[in-house]
């Protein structure tokens, strides 16, 4: 499985270095953000990836315009003139990649280029929102557990344990199947379609974030300035938001950038298995899944959404690497 948390765990070993960076920044008397940006800008690969992502976001937003500009038929207009007698896309009739259809047509004659482009919308929307939700929940609960320790920590940590022991893809499939009907589930709170997918992914991912933040908070709360704040009687809420949170920004950014590509793959995997985004909303995972029945005669239908997925995830991973290097210059020399 290339979804899930493997990537996150792989990075876990790096985290002790992150906090030292704040100190380094203070010495150079620049705001950490400035410094970080300067370093990042020097990273050509990461910048290229960033440009790619910005372009992708623009393309997703402007998808209808681009589709018109290119003269593509749009996401749901079938072009059956490209079919052979058996109703299958035929390259010799313009069903394959060509001037009429840049990326060819799909199983039912729709333009793969347009659908791939619109697929970016789904992918990014789900990835951004679910990451945001997982981060908010994970950071909040992680900080609470790490800061208050004791019973609160035990309960929260055990919940995380249980959830981490649960096969995550199965949980997602179960929820996806349960909530994709009629009014959705939880009394209609969770509507079928994108909301279910976003919720499912966020639910599966928050414990990883929470675990990391908990660990960081545990060590941060022993720092002198936190001790000092506590000794002068600052309220807990203030300490958490004013003292701890700013110092957690770096790991939060790093793990968020790791989460985004993970979640893109997650959504694609769910859609591939048929429990994610439902038709006719284009999704890369779903397109690949649809393509499985004809991939030996219409390679393009499988190839292009897969490439889009690969490149997008790659770009996010490159940015993630760049961010990490920028926040932690020691690791790369």
């Amino acid at each position, binding site marked *: 499985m*290339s979804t899930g948390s*493997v990537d996150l765990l792989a990075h876990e070993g790096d985290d002790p270095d992150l906090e030292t960076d704040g100190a380094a920044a203070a010495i150079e008397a620049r705001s950490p953000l400035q410094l970080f940006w300067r370093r990042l800008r020097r990273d050509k690969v990461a910048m290229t990836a960033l440009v790619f992502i910005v372009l992708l976001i623009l393309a997703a937003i402007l998808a209808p315009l681009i589709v018109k500009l290119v003269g593509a038929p749009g996401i749901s207009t079938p072009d059956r003139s490209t079919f052979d007698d058996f109703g299958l896309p035929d390259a010799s009739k313009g069903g394959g990649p060509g001037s009429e259809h840049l990326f060819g047509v799909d199983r039912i004659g729709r333009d793969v280029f347009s659908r791939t482009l619109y697929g970016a919308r789904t992918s990014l929307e789900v990835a951004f929102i679910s990451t945001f939700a997982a981060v908010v929940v994970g950071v909040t609960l992680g900080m609470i557990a790490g800061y208050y320790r004791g019973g609160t920590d035990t309960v929260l940590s055990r919940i995380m344990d249980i959830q981490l022991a649960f096969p995550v*893809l199965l949980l997602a499939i179960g929820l996806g199947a*349960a909530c994709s*009907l009629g009014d959705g589930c939880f009394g209609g709170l969770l509507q079928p379609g994108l909301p279910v997918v976003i919720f499912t992914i966020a639910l599966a991912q928050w414990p990883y974030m929470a675990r990391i933040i908990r660990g960081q908070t545990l060590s941060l709360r022993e720092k002198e300035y936190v001790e000092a704040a506590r000794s002068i009687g600052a309220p807990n809420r203030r300490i958490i938001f004013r003292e701890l949170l700013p110092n957690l920004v770096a790991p939060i950014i790093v793990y968020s950038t790791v989460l985004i590509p993970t979640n893109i793959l997650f959504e694609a995997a769910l859609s591939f298995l048929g429990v994610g985004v439902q038709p006719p909303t284009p999704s890369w995972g779903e397109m690949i899944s649809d393509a499985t029945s004809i991939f030996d005669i219409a390679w393009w239908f*499988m190839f292009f959404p*897969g490439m889009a997925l*690969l490149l997008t995830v790659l770009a996010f991973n490159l940015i993630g*690497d760049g961010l990490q290097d920028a926040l932690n210059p020691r690791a790369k020399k």
Partner: protein
Amino acid sequence: MAIFIIRRLLWSVVLLVFVTFLTFLIFVVLPSADPALLRAGRNPTPEIIASIRKTLGLDQPWYVQYFKYLRNLVLHFDFGYSYQNFLSVKETIFPRMPATISLALGGAVVWLLIGIPVGILSAVKRGTFIERFAMGAALVGISAPVYWLGLVSIYLFSTDIGKFPIFDATGNYANPWDDFGRWLSSLILPWIVLAVSFAAIYARFMRSNLIEVLDEDYIRTARAKGLVERRVILRHGVRSAITPIVTIFGLDLGILLGGAILTETVFNIPGIGRTAFDAIQKSDLPVVQGTVLIGATAIVLFNLIVDVLYGFIDPRVRY
């Protein structure tokens, strides 16, 4: 140490009970699917449905059902019977485990054999083209969805429709003791495809660990003493850099032994993952419970093994 293990074992059991409970709860939330209907045939008269419901124990409230399930599980190691075909869940799941285990272990061998050497090489050849190429490739590997890689590899290499027919990818899986040749040939492509993203992760991880270790004082000392570089790296560097790998390896293996749904799906391998997926879609609660339980057990167990092993490898860890 013994106390630690016992405490962890006890918690693991509690954890598994929670997991089964959670699975049950999710099913209660599921929109009403009456498993009795699945068995009632074409003329599901209320009488037949009622009798089947009774046989399946569905006429009782869900918490009673759950309690009975738990009791049978604990006292008799009885996983119950499938709603779909009345078969014992044990009979449904256990025969499918060899495929999943074969896939996971074989894949693990492949990714370790690729990931670790590539990681070491990249760390040693830091700043060279080799490192940049290897790490670039690793990042691509991490970014590629496994099912897509699977399809592409079938398109390119499978013996019947492939452009370069090399590997058998026609879902020919057989258990190794029945037909070893078929077992091997049917799994080579899945192993490679499954291993790609893991090999990439391990190579990256190995590289960054090793780079870090090689900067440590004791390595500098060793070098200063005039030890041969190869010896320094292999004897001292790799040895300590590999310790954290053991951790993630244990966790990854635990997750995979619970079923690699996507890989099993693409390559048509009759494993636990697919069984679980089908069972969910068919609302076959007992089978879902069984597969989730096995998956969770694998994860919990390997977590434990990793923690214990860690104590042996890294003497600094205290329990």
